[in-house]
């Protein structure tokens, strides 16, 4: 569903050195070959040599992205049992299942970098790994399901399409698969909102209220301003990041304003207006203190989201063990019969 261009440095990691201290000639040759491949817009595959910092950055970004998909199942899962019709329920179930699938594609991509599934899950469960800040907001009404599809998934598409061209092959391929499915998420959300906007005044007010609550967190989803994103330049150099946070955010605002007009809702920003000179929209200041508070664990739902995730994992422990034991027994039985 949604990555955020949130490539947060791991506070526990030692600062990355630009040049390895004990770099010898062989190392230099490998680095030169790697750089040449990146410059030629080639793909790096799991078996290829890659700088340690490139590998670490990818593990961090891909697993953060995977965690976002998995945690992202919660705010929407909240409404499955209360969807207003069987049709909407089937759509929502399919969407939440997709989010789970997206998480799995991405975990697999992260594992090609030599990190185990258990390691990345442990990082999530212990709170060491981050996920998109957007999922720490509550889904209070049914209109939130529509707005998440329209705005959150819309923002995710803006973010993710450039990652389809990422220099790391498995990540790029996972993203192509994800982007194909993302369009359904965004369109079902918009259509859901169109139906509500054609309904009663109470339904229209519910949509407007949801837009008011989600708009600013969605803009923050694109990550800190370029000036405060020290990792961005390296990510660009490596072909992991293709478009800057601010540029993506601007693209999103410009695409969304006409959509809001079609829907008949107001975007809650008095400073939002078309700038004839720049040929794009100006928008108001984003509350970065709120963003960082949410990223750092103090958003409205951080504790609940993580606790739910940890509980699901722990409650599933016996199932995972039983399935493993059953498979071993079947295997032994088959071997005995063959003997």
């Amino acid at each position, binding site marked *: 569903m949604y990555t955020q261009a949130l490539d947060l440095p791991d506070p526990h990691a030692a600062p990355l050195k630009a040049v390895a201290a004990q770099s010898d000639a062989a190392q230099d040759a490998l680095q030169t070959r790697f750089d040449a491949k990146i410059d030629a817009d080639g793909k790096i595959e799991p078996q290829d040599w890659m700088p340690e910092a490139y590998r670490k950055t990818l593990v961090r970004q891909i697993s953060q992205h995977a965690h976002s998909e998995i945690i992202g199942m919660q705010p929407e899962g909240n409404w499955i049992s209360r969807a207003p019709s069987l049709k909407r329920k089937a759509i929502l179930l399919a969407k939440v299942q997709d989010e789970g*699938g997206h998480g799995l594609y991405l975990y697999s991509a992260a*594992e090609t970098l030599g990190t185990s599934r*258990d390691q990345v899950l442990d990082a999530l469960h212990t709170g060491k790994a981050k996920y998109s800040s957007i999922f720490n907001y509550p889904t209070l009404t049914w209109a939130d399901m529509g707005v998440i599809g329209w705005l959150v998934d819309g923002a995710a598409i803006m973010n993710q399409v450039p990652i389809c061209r990422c220099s790391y092959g498995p990540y790029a391929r996972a993203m192509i698969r994800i982007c194909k499915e993302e369009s359904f998420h965004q369109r079902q959300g918009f259509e859901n909102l169109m139906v509500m906007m054609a309904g009663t005044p109470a339904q229209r007010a519910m949509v407007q209220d949801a837009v008011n609550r989600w708009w600013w967190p969605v803009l923050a989803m694109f990550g800190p301003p370029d000036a405060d994103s020290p990792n961005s330049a390296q990510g660009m150099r490596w072909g992991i990041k293709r478009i800057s946070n601010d540029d993506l955010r601007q693209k999103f605002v410009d695409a969304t304003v006409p959509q809001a007009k079609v829907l008949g809702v107001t975007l809650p920003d008095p400073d939002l207006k078309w700038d004839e000179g720049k040929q794009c929209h100006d928008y108001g200041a984003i509350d970065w203190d709120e963003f960082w508070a949410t990223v750092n664990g103090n958003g409205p739902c951080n504790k609940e989201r993580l606790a739910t995730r940890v509980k699901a994992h722990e409650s599933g422990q016996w199932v995972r063990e039983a*399935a*493993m034991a059953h*498979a071993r027994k079947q*295997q032994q039985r088959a071997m005995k019969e063959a003997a």
Partner: protein
Amino acid sequence: MSTARNEWPLWEVFVRSKQGLEHKHSGSLHAVDAAQALQMARDVYTRRQEGVSIWVVPSSQITASAPDDKAELFEPMADKIYRHPTFYEIPDEVGHM
């Protein structure tokens, strides 16, 4: 903290998108055995009729060529252009068979 030893084994998934086409690598997943891997592959990789047939192979059973052998393995073919039909010039009226 769980250890890698307790992880379900990794499988590679290959999907035939339609009758008459070859199976193509789709991705990987964890499963306890082949039957479970097939079932999970169906849920993870074919939610939108992406396939009519699935293969699953334990990842540990795949042998891959090494990136360093790329030149040795594949470059000898680069100068054998006579293996392609375009190498040969024959009169137009002969046409293509």
